[in-house]
């Protein structure tokens, strides 16, 4: 996941790599995602998020398109 100046810069990055453009989120959404994902990582009783918890997290950030689907 990379940070870009704007949408035009993302298109310029994708084109020479033959990459289909993915999805974009704001730095604020990324912070909320990172905070929820990692805030407990240093704690002894940390455990990995379940699939259902991860889906709920993505939904809470408005990430509901097929791109964010975690299942087969």
């Amino acid at each position, binding site marked *: 996941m990379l*940070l*870009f100046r704007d949408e035009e*810069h*993302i298109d310029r990055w994708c084109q020479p790599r033959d990459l289909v453009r993915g*999805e974009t989120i704001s730095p604020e959404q990324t912070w909320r995602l*990172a905070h929820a*994902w990692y805030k407990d*990582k240093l704690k002894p009783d940390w455990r990995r998020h379940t699939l259902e918890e991860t889906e709920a997290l993505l939904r809470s950030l408005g990430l509901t398109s097929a791109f964010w689907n*975690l299942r*087969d």
Partner: protein
Amino acid sequence: MGETDIEALARDVRIHLFRETAATAKIPQAPQISRALGRSEPDVRAALHQLAAGKVLILAPNDGNIWAANPFCAVPSGFRVRAAGKKYWGICIWDALGIAAALGADAIVTTTCGDCGDVMTLEVRDGRLARSEGIVHFAIPAHHWWDNIGFT
């Protein structure tokens, strides 16, 4: 070593590894973890493999050393994080911000635009994103993130 023993050691390794990394901004590798915990290096490597299988950390494909104990990266990357008077590295913008979250500290994340290379800065202060610019691009659909986590 039995399965239960490996699981118990993996927990000890995880706790030590993340505490040490947070405190020093350096990810300890198997020899250092072995000495710190008083366990054999092969046992520690077995525990690290179990942690990698559980996606707690990422081992380098060539030498089996820890490449990332997410959100921390073992080697300098394009995502520098200054926090708690130290310099950390993340493997992506998600992890770079994750370092601030994991430490519970104010942080300044410095990276470059993936296209033009301009320096870009995000700042976390008092648990909030206090300064930001740009837009974050996910090139890989979520279901395939772990197919090639280095590229993701």
